């Protein structure tokens, strides 16, 4: 073995092979591991750099806190989880095997108390006999109160893996959407062939690979293609693909899930290999819309269960080759190889050619003749146990031999990466000849599988299969393949003889991360947890961050062994998305903070900002809540003043947020008769009518006014919150229920800036605004409407409607004039001491007036409860009519909307209080209703409320308890009419 010669200023990397690897050994990158600085090279992962620096013991296991090392060289890593970066960017549970090295990288080990080496929780390992499968279900029950107080806090603190920073993620994320004819998942030899075939044929291709270097196992093996190293062929293939406009090559991109109808999720890691993201998205979550997909995801090697098979230094054999061939690192200086298949032989061969001492090649099969690439060859036996407290030192064999080794490469066979094939219904099927599960027959729509992922493990066969499959897909898609020949690759032998478990004393680990042993599986079987699903839940096998990529098949095999069954009889393992874990930040994309959802702003927003408005979220809208004036000491001051000024003179409120729907057609009136519970067919042109809408279940869900502008033209208003739902329901009625009515809908909510002008001086103010229109009560009475112009020619609509109970109008101008309009209204209103008012004053006035709003329209409210039962016309068929007449919904003693005054006028009422009859018990059975809305009425000088009360219409004057234990209040209230002011409506009609 040749050690690399240290560059100036760099420390030697003891396990670096200077002549090997697809890394740039001419440049060094500094990184810090557990506070110590080391060096690696561009092209390294953190794992390869740690191994190069002789760091074998890098982690503690989940349950027993056993020392663990680096087990694999890819996304399947169960053991080497680290905390990457620091501060707010700290990233727990990062697999060192896929973390690309960058200059300045810092990482620490996790899941230990004290140092990695001195973890005091390693005590758990000594207690292991008492912590077997499911132990926690059988104890910690006494005394009952101790679970939350004593046991659970201890368990929680010692469980878990890495730590969150507890600070907001400092990076940004993005989402994206791509479309293609063919998605090729995996850029190994099969994927490259497929992409080349499809790309050359002119199809739109996306080739996605999770690695930063495409090529798959070609980068890890010493195979030749067309007489050159495989990785060189991959490089040429990538270059050709990059030159094709119709091919999108996506590296560092994991296709993590297969969803319905050819939709795939993919995560591109854009800046994770850089010291900082530089203000650009750290990762992009792509949604891929595909016509066809070809899964070329390769295979994952698995281990063999034998006693103490979890020590640092015990690794997958293929991973050992990856480190030697791709990264120029040997994981040990005296390496032993344990295999049950021909593929394991390559590890010995590759290491020996790199100059590494291979102390033994142990093949579990009898009668095979492995090549002499090791100091000793043992066949027909296996490893029985291992020694080495913080890392492997020695192995003992089933034949009694004891061999020194600081690395044991275990080749237990390869499991095709079927994950995406089973994300929908597909259940993998077992193939005895390769001792592995392959994708089943029920694949996601549009998906095919080729290469090692399909159980075709050898290079030439995988490439041939990829070509054949791609050609068939191209034909489906209407493209013709160019007919290029396959490159020449050798087909190496790939014989395997299933061998899973060396039964001997000592714990044999199956799931390295969750610390599940073969014995746990036997116990689980004995305790009746006999299906794979019960097994995994009882033992937590395969539930760790690696989702059992290296463990599941082994676990299943041992379960089969325990049950005395074959593997197919025992079950199968399926996988759920995501293939590898996806950051929640990436899944959320940009939607966080203020960007969580869009803001809708009213036309007067800018003006309101300039005039001291406080805003409130009303669904997506921001509305002015009140307008503070100098000297006002709190919101109540402002709101009381706005109400007083409006009721005394005139106030203006932006009501643009109400939904506005333009309804036109010869049959528009008939249509309205169907969708409103009350009649609209006879509404005259130039008039507005108030209407209530029911759901088909008879519940009143929205109300508003509709104006008739011409015989065939209506303008409907809805509540702000229901605008979208009402529109949808109208379209349903129009298209599905009465499809031959000539009626057409379009939303104009955003097209008009609409202002309520309310108060005794509303008419006087508006007479200075509208052009040439007689606003007298006779000419333009309550509920009149018209199109008109304002301020000398600007088009407008005027409606005489009132929510405040005052003489009031709503005036609308095209939105482009909205800002100018509010300024003009305020200008001409100066002589009337006009005030703008916000949603709070709006709320106070509607409660004073006894109008219901969102707090009353809970979706549980009938028209009868609102006192509007009589409005529901029984002479015409409207939506909700029949079911609104069900027996329980028209009971006379049902809830009714009534008003409330506090008996002691100095007390403020609270919404949400429940009503109790005096002397009744305080329980649900005696609940009489609840307070829905409260306000302090400047006009009455005390707090008032609206609420639903059982049989309320017949209880005027009764004194009840407004029971509010959650706020420690219990207030005597008197039942009154909901119309606290002007019950006759003289003001709004005046």
């Amino acid at each position, binding site marked *: 073995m040749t050690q690399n010669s240290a560059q100036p200023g760099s420390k030697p990397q003891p396990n670096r092979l200077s002549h090997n690897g697809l890394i740039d050994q001419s440049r060094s990158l500094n990184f810090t591991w557990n506070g110590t600085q080391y060096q690696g090279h561009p092209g390294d992962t953190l794992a390869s750099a740690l191994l190069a620096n002789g760091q074998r013991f890098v982690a503690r296991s989940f349950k027993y806190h056993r020392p663990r090392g680096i087990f694999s060289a890819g996304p399947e890593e169960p053991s080497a989880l680290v905390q990457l970066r620091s501060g707010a*960017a700290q990233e*727990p*549970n990062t697999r060192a095997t896929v973390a690309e090295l960058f200059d300045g990288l810092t990482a620490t080990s996790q899941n230990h108390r004290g140092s990695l080496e001195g973890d005091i929780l390693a005590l758990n390992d000594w207690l292991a*006999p*008492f912590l077997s499968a499911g132990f926690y*279900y*059988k*104890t910690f*029950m*006494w005394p*009952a109160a101790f*679970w939350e107080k004593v046991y659970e806090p201890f368990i*929680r603190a010692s*469980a878990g*893996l890495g730590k969150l*920073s*507890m600070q907001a*993620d400092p*990076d940004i994320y993005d989402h994206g959407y791509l479309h293609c004819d063919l998605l090729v998942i995996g850029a190994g030899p099969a994927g490259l062939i497929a992409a080349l075939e499809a790309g050359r044929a002119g199809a739109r291709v996306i080739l996605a690979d999770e690695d930063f270097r495409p090529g798959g196992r070609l980068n890890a093996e010493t195979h030749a293609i067309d007489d050159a190293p495989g990785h060189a062929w991959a490089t040429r293939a990538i270059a050709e693909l990059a030159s094709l406009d119709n091919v999108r090559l996506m590296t560092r991109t994991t296709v993590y899930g297969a969803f*319905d109808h050819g939709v795939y*999720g993919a995560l591109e890691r854009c800046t994770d290999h850089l010291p900082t993201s530089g203000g650009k998205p750290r990762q992009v979550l792509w949604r891929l819309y595909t016509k066809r997909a070809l899964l070329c995801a390769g295979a994952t090697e698995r281990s063999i269960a034998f006693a103490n098979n979890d020590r640092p230094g015990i690794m997958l054999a293929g991973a050992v080759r990856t480190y030697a061939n791709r990264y120029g690192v040997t994981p040990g200086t005296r390496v032993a190889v344990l295999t049950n298949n021909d593929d394991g032989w390559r590890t010995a061969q590759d290491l020996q050619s790199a100059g590494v001492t291979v102390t033994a090649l142990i093949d579990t099969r009898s009668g095979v003749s492995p090549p002499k690439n090791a100091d000793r060859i043992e066949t027909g036996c296996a490893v029985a146990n291992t020694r080495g407290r913080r890392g492997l030192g020695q192995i003992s064999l089933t034949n009694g031999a004891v061999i020194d080794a600081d690395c044991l490469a275990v080749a237990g066979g390869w499991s095709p990466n079927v994950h995406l094939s089973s*994300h*929908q219904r597909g259940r993998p099927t077992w193939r005895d000849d390769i001792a592995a599960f392959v994708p089943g027959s029920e694949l996601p729509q549009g998906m095919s599988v080729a290469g090692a992922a399909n159980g075709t493990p050898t290079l030439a066969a995988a490439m041939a299969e990829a070509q054949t499959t791609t050609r068939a897909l191209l034909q489906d898609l209407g493209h013709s393949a160019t007919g290029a020949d396959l490159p020449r690759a050798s087909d190496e032998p790939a014989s395997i003889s299933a061998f899973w478990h060396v039964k001997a004393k000592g714990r044999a680990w199956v799931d390295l991360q969750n610390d599940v042993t073969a*014995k746990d599986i036997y*116990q689980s079987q004995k305790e*009746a947890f006999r299906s794979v*699903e019960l097994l995994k*839940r009882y033992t937590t096998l395969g*539930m760790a*961050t690696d989702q059992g990529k290296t463990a599941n098949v082994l676990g299943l095999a041992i379960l089969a062994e325990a049950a005395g069954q074959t593997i197919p009889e025992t079950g199968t393992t399926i996988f*759920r998305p*995501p293939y590898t*874990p*996806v950051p*929640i*930040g990436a*899944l*959320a*994309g940009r*939607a966080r903070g203020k960007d*969580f*959802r869009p803001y809708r702003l009213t036309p007067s927003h800018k003006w309101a900002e300039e005039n001291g408005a406080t805003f*409130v*979220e009303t669904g997506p809208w921001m509305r002015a809540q009140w307008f503070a004036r100098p000297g006002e000491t709190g919101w109540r001051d402002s709101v009381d003043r706005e109400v007083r000024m409006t009721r005394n003179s005139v106030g203006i409120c932006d009501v643009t947020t109400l939904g506005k729907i333009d309804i036109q057609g010869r049959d528009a009136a008939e249509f309205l008769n169907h969708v409103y519970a009350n009649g609209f067919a006879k509404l005259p042109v130039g008039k507005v009518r108030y209407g209530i809408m029911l759901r088909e279940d008879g519940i009143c869900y929205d109300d508003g006014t509709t104006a008739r502008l011409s015989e065939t033209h209506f303008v409907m208003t809805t509540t702000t919150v229901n605008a979208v739902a009402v529109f949808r329901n109208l379209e349903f009625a129009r298209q599905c229920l009465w499809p031959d009515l000539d009626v057409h809908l379009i939303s104009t909510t955003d097209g008009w800036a609409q202002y309520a002008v309310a108060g005794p001086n509303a008419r006087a103010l508006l007479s200075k605004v509208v052009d040439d229109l007689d606003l007298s009560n006779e000419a333009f009475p309550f509920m009149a409407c018209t199109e008109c112009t304002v301020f000398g020619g600007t088009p407008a609509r005027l409606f005489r409607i009132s929510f405040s109970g005052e003489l009031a109008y709503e005036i609308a101008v095209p939105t482009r004039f909205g800002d100018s309009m509010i300024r003009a209204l305020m200008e001409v209103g100066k002589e009337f001491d006009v005030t703008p008012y916000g949603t709070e004053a709006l709320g106070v006035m509607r409660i004073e007036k006894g109008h219901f709003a969102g*707090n009353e329209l*809970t*979706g*549980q409210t009938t028209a009868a409860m609102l006192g509007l039962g009589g409005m529901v016309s029984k002479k015409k068929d409207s939506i909700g009519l029949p079911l609104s007449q*069900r027996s329980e919904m028209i009971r006379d003693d049902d809830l009714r909307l009534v008003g409330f005054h506090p008996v002691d006028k100095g007390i403020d009422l609270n*919404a*949400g209080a*429940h009503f109790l009859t005096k002397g009744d018990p*305080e*329980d*649900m059975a005696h609940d009489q209703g*609840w307070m829905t809305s409260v306000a302090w009425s400047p006009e009455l000088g005390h707090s008032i409320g609206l609420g639903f009360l059982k049989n309320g219409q017949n209880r005027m004057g009764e004194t009840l308890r407004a*029971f*509010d*234990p*959650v706020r420690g209040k219990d207030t005597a209230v008197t039942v009154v009419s909901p119309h606290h002011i002007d019950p006759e409506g003289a003001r709004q009609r005046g």
Partner: protein
Amino acid sequence: MRYSALKILTQGLTGNKGWQPAWREPEPKAEYDVLIIGAGGHGLATAYYLAKEFGVTNVAVVEKGWLGSGNIGRNTTIIRSNYLLEGNQPFYELSLKLWEGLEQDFNYNAMVSQRGILNLIHSDGQRDAFARRANAMRLSGADSELLDRDGIHAMCPFLDFDNARFPIQGALWQPRGGTVRHDAVAWGFARGADTRGVDILQNREVTGIDIEDGVVKGVQTSKGPIRAKKVAMCAAGSSGRVAALAGMRLPIESHVLQAFVSEGLKPVIPGVITFGAGHFYVSQSDKGGLVFGGDIDGYNTYAQRGNLPVVEDVCEGGMAIMPMIGRARLLRMWGGVMDMSMDGSPIIDATQTDGLYLNAGWCYGGFKATPASGYCYAHLLATGRPHDTARFFRLDRFHRGAMIDEKGVGAQPNLH
């Protein structure tokens, strides 16, 4: 075998070789007094309480797959009784009380962990509605508190208090809410029922319900017929399919609810937190995974998987209230098929067929209801009368117009 710390100790010292099967795998008898269709949480709980509380032990629970393989093993493990309506609140409070004594009752540690549930409030209207709810909870003996921003901050300083699109204004807090190790609930009830003589018949699908002259006689299964005096449907998620065997149409649609778990993390979340301006709720399991979910996918389905838009919507909600979880990774997503009923509330009732009973329509709230559902269903099966707290869960309520519609969204199951 009774479980105890001593048993763990003695077994540990003798190589854990003496553990016994947690339940039998019996052959069916020719006839049962009660045959329950579905060995999920509710079915097993029903069998357990029938045997333990009502002395009815000639009971079979028939399951098409493995016991506990339905929604009991696929949910987000939350227990709470923060309900609003008279039809619901006392029932869920009964359930919470049963949870509180469950482990000692069935000698199995289901890890009932009452670390509280926090429902965030983002608007005045929501505050009023939660005040109404909090008082309703008090009226039926449950615990509830309204917290202000400072109170929430003290509990969850990591929430986004400064930069939120929908600022946090307060919260409804139920200290007795929490989580339970869901699989253990199924196993504990199964073991408890089995010990008392109930036959749990796994891997046996009910393929027909035998009815003669309006009277139930038994069921057909994939492995032969079984006679029964009473047949109790208890297969939420598949209720439509089971009820169809008896010729019934139900006020139920099947929908998928996705759930998610992150990689294991050291403790960060104190109890359960729900976002009031989006679809997101979260807790942290004892193993350290953030267990979270949101809205149902919204279309009829019997497939136990969902689609990306909802995954993204849920994670958006998560990042909106707790942007510290951006670098935590989602490890696994899965789906459970829900009986979404027409008013969002369940059904525990007799049917028009003599001897045939229905327990269904749990929407995504079935887990927390498991003990009370089992208890009340057992009560109905054993006495013929509904239990007082479940008396509103009648099938005819839709015809009468007595819906129990907590969310007020009407006869549209995917909105509940």
